[in-house]
């Protein structure tokens, strides 16, 4: 709420700075205005004296920094050479800064709306719940955390590793319930073996299969402790006159003591591996390896190439790339909403308490459904509060910095960039070009200004009412 109070104070300061100007906008009773004017006229030094502390403070803390920033934005990185509007040119030609502008637009459009909508829903619903206060407390709690801490929390929530990031843990758990993963993710043949990688992650033998001799398919790259329980010693497949046979096994013995391509004692069988016979690009037969790793294909597979389809090796599902280039901004906005929905809720709930019960009762008596009551009575009556919340959040969102700075990993920081972050990066983050930084500051000010003006006017109107 500091943001909201600041413009108010600034507005007051502006009014105080020119106290003797006629203020037609302020409809005061005539007598009071006349008296006020007369005090200023007769003893102006008294007025100045009373205003002085506020003027000095505002001047030093608000007016001077703004003026200095504007002045600074016209100078180069060292602050010595006047460059005119070149810094603004840099801002609007730099690709990264344009991304920041775009992201800011997304933030302003999405974050306040979602937070207010959620706050409204929470406020209306908790009014009916017995434990409403407890619920409100819980929802409001994130507000008690600093942005930095919230950023760290969400950095962890979005961690790619499902065993660390709760978001991906949920996604992976749900995904794995509906589709089982492959038996041997990551397995593959040795690079110099007969099996060569082919399209789609499958492996195909370069030589043709034959009957009467073992057509062995050695694989490596599976941790011993990830083999299915009870995996036994691999056995050479007995040659059969009417079948194409062979063994699929883990061609590796701890210590690297096994011979490549040979079934050594201690090397484990890979059961349940699908083997296909391919002729002319078509699957003509398929088999699955048994407990001892052996498989048998019908006689027609002779002369065909053997393929291990990719379904055997499909990697584990790793969840969603929350912090990747495409999802980073929505992810951070979600974190922001988590923090600020409680704020919206509390303000709206306060507004809700002021809504006259009779109106709601009356509507219900008149036969309106709950939804109609909400849509036609509650929301319109709450509109002023909703606007206050939205505007406050908008101002807050325009200067969002901490969450983005902390949550976005280095590689996608540019994709998540916002103006306030770019301001910091340009000014202090290595480049140390405070000219460009000031230019961004000025732009940010210009962007906040319309919202501020709107806010001040609304406050005035309210005061008049």
């Amino acid at each position, binding site marked *: 709420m500091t943001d909201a109070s600041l413009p108010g104070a600034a507005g007051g300061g502006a009014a105080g700075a020119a106290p003797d100007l006629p203020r037609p906008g302020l409809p005061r009773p005539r007598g009071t205005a006349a008296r006020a004017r007369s005090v200023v006229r007769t003893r102006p030094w008294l007025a100045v004296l009373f205003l002085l502390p506020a003027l000095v403070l505002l001047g030093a803390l608000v007016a001077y920094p703004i003026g200095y920033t504007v002045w600074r934005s016209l100078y180069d990185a060292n602050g010595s050479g006047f460059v005119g509007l070149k810094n603004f040119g840099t801002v609007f030609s730099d690709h990264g800064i344009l991304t920041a502008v775009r992201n800011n637009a997304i933030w302003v459009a999405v974050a306040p709306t979602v937070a207010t909508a959620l706050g409204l829903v929470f406020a209306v619903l908790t009014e009916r719940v017995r434990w409403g206060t407890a619920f409100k407390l819980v929802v409001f709690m994130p507000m008690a955390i600093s942005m*930095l*801490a919230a*950023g*760290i*929390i969400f*950095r*962890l929530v979005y*961690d*790619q*590793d499902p065993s*660390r990031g709760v978001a991906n843990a949920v996604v992976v758990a749900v995904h794995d319930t509906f589709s089982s993963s492959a038996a041997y993710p*990551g397995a*593959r043949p*040795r*690079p110099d073996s007969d099996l060569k990688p082919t399209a789609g992650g499958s492996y195909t033998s370069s030589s043709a299969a034959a009957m009467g001799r073992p057509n062995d398919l050695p694989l*490596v*790259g*599976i*941790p*011993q*402790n*990830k083999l299915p329980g009870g995996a036994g010693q691999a056995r050479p497949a007995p040659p059969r006159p009417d079948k194409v046979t062979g063994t699929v096994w*883990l*061609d*590796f013995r*701890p*210590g*690297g*003591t096994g011979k490549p391509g040979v079934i050594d004692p201690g090397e484990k069988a890979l059961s349940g591996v699908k083997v296909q016979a391919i002729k002319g690009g078509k699957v003509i037969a398929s088999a699955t390896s048994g407990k001892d790793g052996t498989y048998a294909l019908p006689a027609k597979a002779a002369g065909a190439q053997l393929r291990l389809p990719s379904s055997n090796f499909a*990697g584990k599902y*790793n969840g969603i*790339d929350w*912090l990747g280039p495409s999802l980073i901004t929505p992810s951070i906005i979600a974190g922001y909403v988590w923090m600020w929905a409680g704020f919206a809720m509390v303000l709206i709930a306060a507004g809700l308490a002021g809504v006259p019960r009779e109106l709601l009762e009356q509507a219900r008596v008149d036969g309106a459904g709950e939804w109609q009551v909400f849509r036609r009575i509650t929301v319109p009556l709450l509109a002023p509060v909703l606007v206050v919340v939205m505007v406050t959040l908008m101002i807050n969102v325009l200067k969002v910095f901490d969450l983005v*700075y*902390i949550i*976005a*990993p*280095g*590689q*996608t*920081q*540019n994709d998540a960039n916002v103006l306030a972050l770019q301001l910091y*990066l340009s000014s*202090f*983050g*290595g*480049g*140390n070009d405070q000219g460009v930084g000031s230019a961004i500051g000025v732009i940010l000010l210009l962007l906040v200004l319309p919202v501020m003006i709107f806010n001040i006017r609304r406050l005035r109107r309210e005061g008049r009412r």
Partner: protein
Amino acid sequence: MAQMRTYTRTRTSRTTRIALAAVTASALALTAAACSSDSKKNDSKGSSPSASASASASGSAGGLQLPDLHGQKLEVAAVWTGPEQQNFQRVLDEFDKRTGAKSTYVPTGDSQSTFLGTKIAGGAPPDVAFLAQNGVLHQFADKGWLKPLGAPAQAQLTANFSPGWQQLGAWKGKQYGVYAKVSNKSLIWYNAKAFENAGATEPKTWADFLKTAETVYESGTAPVSVGGADGWTLTDWFENIYLSQAGPAKYDALAQHKIKWTDPSVTQALTTLGQLFTKQNLLAGGTKGALAADFPKSVTQVFTGSNPAAMVYEADFVSAFVSANTKAKVGTDAKVFPFPAVGSGKPPVVSGGDVAVALKDSPGAQALLTFIASTDAARIWAQGGGYVSPNKSLDFSAYPDDVQRSIAQALIASGDDFRFDMSDQAPAAFGGTKGEGEWKDLQDFLAKPQDVKGAQAALESDAAKAYGN
């Protein structure tokens, strides 16, 4: 933790990382307690022998003479915290004991040049500061904030340090600093059990290294853990390959941006690095896993879990990190080999370090620099572990364990063939900022290692912007 600080000190984003680590490592409090009790033990044990050793050393060397500084107060600033700070505190205590001065240590936090800059601007600089970045020394010297070394300190420096390390502390013909604490950034740490299981041996060349990685992969273990979420680990990968492959002369030229990043030597180095990065199988967690792993994770996933990865590249401070955050024992479970030689080049030795400089023209500051440059100080410092000194007069027996000793030996043996971390020499905008410059460009390269030309173009345009040429 000390190592947290070490690997992030010149970077802008460490608050995040430190805080993250603080949240994640639930064992942090425990390990911190363990660390402090350890060093206390060392303290009580170490104080009496070091005192006697110093007496004999000053007798035999005869060079180290410290003035009487009773009643004087000294302020020393450096980035170290935790065990590293306690370790250095023992050096300071010894100094106080010998001179009668009263010195206090001030941690600067990670934005060191900002911290010192404000102190200097405010007219109250610390007497002595340890600068983590070589570039900051130049910057401060140019501004006239540094005081050159006096004759006694210079004498210690000349006696104990090779010309390479001396020059690093000099700028425009004047000696300003002493590189008293350095790190060897050309090490690959590995999980001994994973190597044993795979029947792999320590590789000597890059080709061997890739072959070893394949062997390890065949055993079912993810071979190489890359901490790609932190851009600086990638710059260190590149620097090692480039130094070995292109040679020191080109390395220096590239560090000063006298040759462009579009140079064929860079193409070659990136292509070599791509031999590892393009192979999904060789990276722990594939490309995605590498990009998502920050430095702490890249180390812990090699030494913890049911199916740990086999190798991780980074500097000697990994050892401190391993002891603090995993159950693995450095020297038995966690072993180390030097970064392999690439092509026909020599094995690279890339190093980083903290340079002690005087910010005040006081006798106390000069005396402390003299002491820091002496072998006596290095010996006390080394006993605590997690410390490597470029002081060539220091006996290797001063190091507490074999791993630390071998790291120090490799560093001293390289003589002046070592090179200082390239990204730490570069302007911060290029070599030291999260999400920008070299860090970001190499992360993009890790994400798309086929696109060597694209990576070079991005590096060159960022370098040109940052160096301003």
